[in-house]
């Protein structure tokens, strides 16, 4: 080989190399361009619509005027309840996978497989599961048991439960990752000082993994806030006079509100400004949540 290899390569080959890199770069920046274009469209068209009255008012005139307050509040209730239901389960699973499980054991492998499978199940299937299991089976079962009639229909609680199941893999993966960043030395030092394994986990490992649990929750909330397909028949409603006052009531949701405005409304063009503004709020919300999670995570990785 000649010492200066680059000059020995014939021109067509050098051109080929140039194009090979150019194509890869174009692909990357095309994707970035689309993202910027999308965000730009919404900011440009919806920016002026996002006002305090828009955020704080009820929709009027069958969703053609007014604000998005009940959708915003409903989404918040939904993700809060979802976090309460899902994050403890996800955290416990992650603790098991990272602290207790022998990695080659049959049970640990099954749990891992189940988590990965769960992450790949289409969200609409979770919606069907919500109907079949939570509403029809659990809800009707509770009604039959208590003699009530409030659980056997789609409602806030069942939608939250469905989303908790849907976001379980997000929480598990994120918490497990953060548990793995806790140095082995800390665990061994704690055990060597005479602490039991349980004490080590609760007093040493978990406090160091709090950021991970936080990241997992934030990511799950981001996912849950934007998810429509999974809750579309499990309790979401397109219009409501008041905020839900009990977990067995139906609720409005930002994403579903946008879906209804843009596809089911009798006069879609008239509500276009509302649609853009709603999109901007929804996107801004999920964007902020995901950005926070990514920032926390990258700080965590550097540690």
């Amino acid at each position: 080989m000649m010492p200066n290899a680059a000059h020995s390569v014939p021109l067509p080959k050098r051109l080929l190399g140039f194009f090979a890199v150019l194509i890869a770069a174009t692909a990357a920046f095309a994707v970035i361009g689309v993202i910027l274009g999308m965000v730009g469209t919404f900011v440009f068209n919806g920016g002026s619509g996002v006002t305090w009255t828009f955020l704080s008012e009820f929709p009027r005139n069958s969703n053609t005027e007014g604000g998005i307050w009940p959708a915003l509040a409903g989404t918040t209730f939904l993700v809060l309840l979802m976090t309460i239901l899902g994050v403890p389960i996800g955290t416990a699973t992650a603790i098991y996978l990272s602290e207790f499980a022998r990695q080659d054991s049959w049970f640990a492998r099954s749990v891992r497989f189940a988590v990965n499978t769960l992450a790949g199940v289409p969200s609409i299937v979770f919606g069907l599961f919500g109907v079949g299991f939570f509403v029809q089976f659990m809800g009707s079962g509770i009604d039959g048991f208590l003699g009530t009639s409030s659980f056997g229909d789609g409602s806030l609680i069942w939608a939250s439960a469905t989303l908790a199941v849907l976001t379980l893999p997000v929480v598990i993966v994120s918490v497990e990752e953060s548990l793995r960043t806790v140095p082995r030395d800390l665990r061994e030092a704690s055990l060597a000082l005479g602490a039991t394994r349980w004490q080590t986990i609760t007093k040493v490992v978990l406090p160091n993994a709090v950021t991970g649990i936080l990241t997992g929750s934030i990511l799950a909330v981001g996912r849950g806030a934007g998810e429509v397909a999974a809750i579309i028949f499990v309790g979401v409603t397109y219009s409501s006079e008041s905020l839900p006052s009990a977990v067995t009531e139906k609720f409005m949701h930002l994403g579903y509100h946008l879906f209804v405005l843009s596809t089911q409304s009798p006069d879609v063009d008239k509500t276009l400004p509302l649609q853009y503004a709603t999109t901007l709020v929804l996107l801004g919300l999920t964007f902020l949540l995901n950005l926070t999670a990514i920032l926390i995570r990258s700080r965590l990785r550097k540690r």
Partner: protein
Amino acid sequence: MSNPFRSKHTHWGEWIAEWSIRLVASASIVVIFLIFVFVFREASSLFIPKKFVEAPSLSATSSPNAEMVPETYGEEPAVAETPTSGEEGAPGQFIYSPKNPHYPEIYNPDTGLLPADIDVVPADPEAEAPPVQIGLTENLTSNVWQPVGEVPKFGIIPLLIGTAKTTIIAILIGAPLGILAALYVAFFAKRWVREIVKPAIELLAGFPSVVIGFFCLVTVASFVQDITGLPYRLNAIVGGIGLSLAVIPIVFSIAEDALSSVPKSLHEASLALGSTEWQTAYRVMLPAAAPGVFAAVLLGVGRAFGETMIAIMATGNAPLSSWSPFEPARTVAATIGSEMGEVVWGSEHYGVLFFLGVLLFVVSFGLNAITELYVKKRFIKRFQGQ
């Protein structure tokens, strides 16, 4: 790791706590199992006489449903046809067989594995006196999806075509873009560029699909129509573009993971032999990471065909049996999403929608199993087994 401290379990509280953690950890497995059971169960009301859906323990009035005309089923559900027990089934009625391997846990009246079906399935108004009887298998495999009407037609062929059409378009656009962007980030980009590009594309994964769908509806659709001058504003191309926006971040991050987990020694060896950076990237690293990249594309396929909101909003939603990308399409997921809201719970239509859900679940489960069991093993073997 084995636990040398097991003898320290002097506190019962801790022992209980640890075992409850183990128990909770099985939640994911339980959920997968429950999805199987409950989505299949609702779909199964199609394939068995309603008598067996109603739990025998609950309904004392389980008289043989005379009006339930037994239908001929194809090979798909494989419900046992042999009247095994001396139950009060009408002649020719399909009798549940406990030996049936396909639905062992769903409706087994003997073991009672099926918890009591509390909601009594309302009688289907359409099924009671349909003008023309169409066999279910025949109906499902027909070319017409027309669930509301005198004779409801549940031909899933147009839905399958629509799903395949939009998924193929999404993958044709999304997979190359995702993989090339991953190559760029992994090998060509400067460090500071990578630090921006990578999280930016990963942020796209966090975009709610309803937002992407709306973007397609208002912007991409007009854009495509301006270029092509098509009569339909919403069509499979627009849907495919929308789905590709959901596919790209998945393909990108998994392919990027795979590319950067190829051992550095391969990279260095290739450069040392005199090949350039791009030759190394395209001809050494990409083939070496092929199983991982393949997994990325498979998961992208899973995302594209299961995506609901983008498909509802951007494809035009017409169940046509046409492979033309310029005509509207309707996917399986979009059908469930748009019709489940109006359907009478327990009706035949309801059962068919759940059957479509079963299809989605089985395919996504299969795709995931392939990536988990086959691809990852290949990938690990390639770099650690040698």
